[in-house]
């Protein structure tokens, strides 16, 4: 039928062709069929204009490389030729950068560079704990809500809304205050408070499948809802869940560092970016690099994770 915004004669050709019932093959773009009708096409399909979704992107690729390097550093730290992060050289406290100590030493003589490398371990450990607890809680929650009756669905989603914008750091501090400083407890709490977003994503992936005909048929054949959920909903839901996971993972990294900064994370003397920064800040004027280095590490880690998420979003989410 004629498009209401067609501007007269130029588009009449295509409209007339469609009216007459002729099929226009998908790969014969209207621009080829009727010259001058490029305006009918969405912006990203017009000839001569590059795709809106630019593929994975340069920044995400760089982020991926950096993330891989940090992961490798955290795994390989003990075998790398760097100083023991706990070894104190008391004669060299707050020393500046030197050939032996690439980033100088901290207030009790420990090598800052090796503490930054070893700090990757507790950082990624914290992120992993939070991500795992978020997914373990969020995915079944969303699936259950998506496949349940309206009342159960409504209740589950109300609970999700209650937790949705609660600041994770405050809750982590509350949990630490009740249970004592422990990375596992606080990061599990952070993961739990971030799971409603994942639950919502899974629920919205489950809803369209729920009413589909093949599901009704499978159900009448005796296929359990669990199997339908796992085989048909999960694969479709993975894309947004993956994007969301990377986006919040960078936030988890910052929270882990923040808890360390407040002294509520991994107990000393274990290397932790946030805690090292807090200790080094006391001597900022004398030794700025000891404060700047862990912070740069946190920034780099968080940025690499979030750009990977950006890249995944432009690849996985159809425009």
């Amino acid at each position, binding site marked *: 039928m004629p498009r209401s*915004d067609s501007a007269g004669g130029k588009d009449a050709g295509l409209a007339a062709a469609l009216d007459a019932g002729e099929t226009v093959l998908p790969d014969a773009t209207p621009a080829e069929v009727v010259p001058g009708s490029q*305006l009918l096409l969405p*912006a990203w399909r017009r000839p001569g204009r590059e795709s809106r979704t630019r593929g994975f992107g340069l*920044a995400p690729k760089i982020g991926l490389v950096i993330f891989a390097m940090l992961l490798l550093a955290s795994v390989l730290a003990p075998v790398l030729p760097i100083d023991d992060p706990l070894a104190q050289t008391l004669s060299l406290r707050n020393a500046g950068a030197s050939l032996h100590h690439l980033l100088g030493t901290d207030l009790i003589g420990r090598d800052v560079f090796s503490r930054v490398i070893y700090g990757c371990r507790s950082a990624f450990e914290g992120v992993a704990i939070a991500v795992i607890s978020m997914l373990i809680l969020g995915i079944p929650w969303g699936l259950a809500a998506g496949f349940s009756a309206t009342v159960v669905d409504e209740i589950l989603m*109300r*609970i999700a*809304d*209650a*937790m*949705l*914008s*609660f*600041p*994770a*750091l*405050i*809750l982590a*501090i*509350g*949990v*630490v*205050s*009740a*249970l*004592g400083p422990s990375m596992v407890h606080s990061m599990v709490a952070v993961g739990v408070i971030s799971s409603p977003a994942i639950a919502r994503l899974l629920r919205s992936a489950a809803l369209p499948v729920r009413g589909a005909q093949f599901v009704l048929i499978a159900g009448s054949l005796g296929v359990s809802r669990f199997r339908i959920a796992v085989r048909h909903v999960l694969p479709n839901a993975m894309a947004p869940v993956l994007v969301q996971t990377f986006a919040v993972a*960078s936030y988890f990294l*910052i*929270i882990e*560092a*923040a808890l360390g*900064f*407040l*002294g*509520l994370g991994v107990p000393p003397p274990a290397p932790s970016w*946030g805690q090292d*920064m807090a200790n080094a*800040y006391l001597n*900022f*004027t004398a030794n*700025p690099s000891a*404060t*700047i280095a*862990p*912070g740069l590490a*946190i*920034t780099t880690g*968080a*940025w690499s994770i*979030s*750009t990977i998420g*950006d890249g995944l979003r432009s690849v996985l989410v159809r425009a």
Partner: protein
Amino acid sequence: MLRIILLRVATSIPTIFLSTIVVFALRYLLPGGPVEAMLGGGSAGQVSAKQIAAIKARLGLDASVPAQYWHWLRSALHGDLGTSYYSQEPVTTVLGQRVVPSLELIVGALVVSILVGGGLGILSAIKRDRVSGRVILLGTGLGLSVPDFWLATIAAGVLGLTLNIFPAVGFTAISEDLGRNLHTVTLPIVVLSIVTGCFLARHISSAMISALECPYIRTAWAMGVPGWKVYLICALRNAVAPVITFIPLAFAGLVGGTVLVETIFAIPGLGTEIVTSVTNEDFPVVQGVVLLVGVLVAVLNLLADVVLAFIDPRMRRAAA
């Protein structure tokens, strides 16, 4: 219209109650129970079971859990949030003294981030095909990943300790001296607004870009509407919704941010209060702060929903 507001309020009330339940449940995580925590960790062998039972009866802790929750909620609604273990003052008094500096930081950071972040977001949407737009997007992406407490240490260290432009620590209340107050509060607000500003810039940018792709903009260009008018109409109309949705989210994030920034700049607000209370194992104060924050965030979300319903004709029509 009124129906929509009432509906939203009605559906938000259970949400707010649920967050109070979460906060209340925290106290059951205390190892050994609330009474043992109140008496301090080292009192394990010194206080007899009979005395503990007596304290429990006095505090009403021997009732069933739902009854305790109801009792706690009722007193909370009357303004009684318990007594601090550390200072024996009512929690509401302790919190009341600390709220104003925190609010100053949070509201200041919100205003600055809306102005600067909003402007940057609109700019990056307008220049989305140019280098400057991509640069702004990269910059905001980086700004989102920077930990705000690191920025605070660097700002305090460089601008405060080394160059002495702004004070690195300390706070002067508004009631004492407005000029000095602004002087002490500038660095914390700037640091806090960097992250939230980047967050808002990205939101507004994506909202505006999807608006600029619409056919009616193309029609406006074709009709010869001057550029600044097109952008202004696009900018104002389409930036309002993201800003309103953003405010409760930013508030939640800023509360977390103020915890650290206040500690670094030694500002006597809720942030330093919660940190010292955790160190002192002063659980009622921590619980009070968590409750306050949770309820505030839920209420702000409700307000944002209502305002959005007012502004956005689509939502009004959808709900009708």
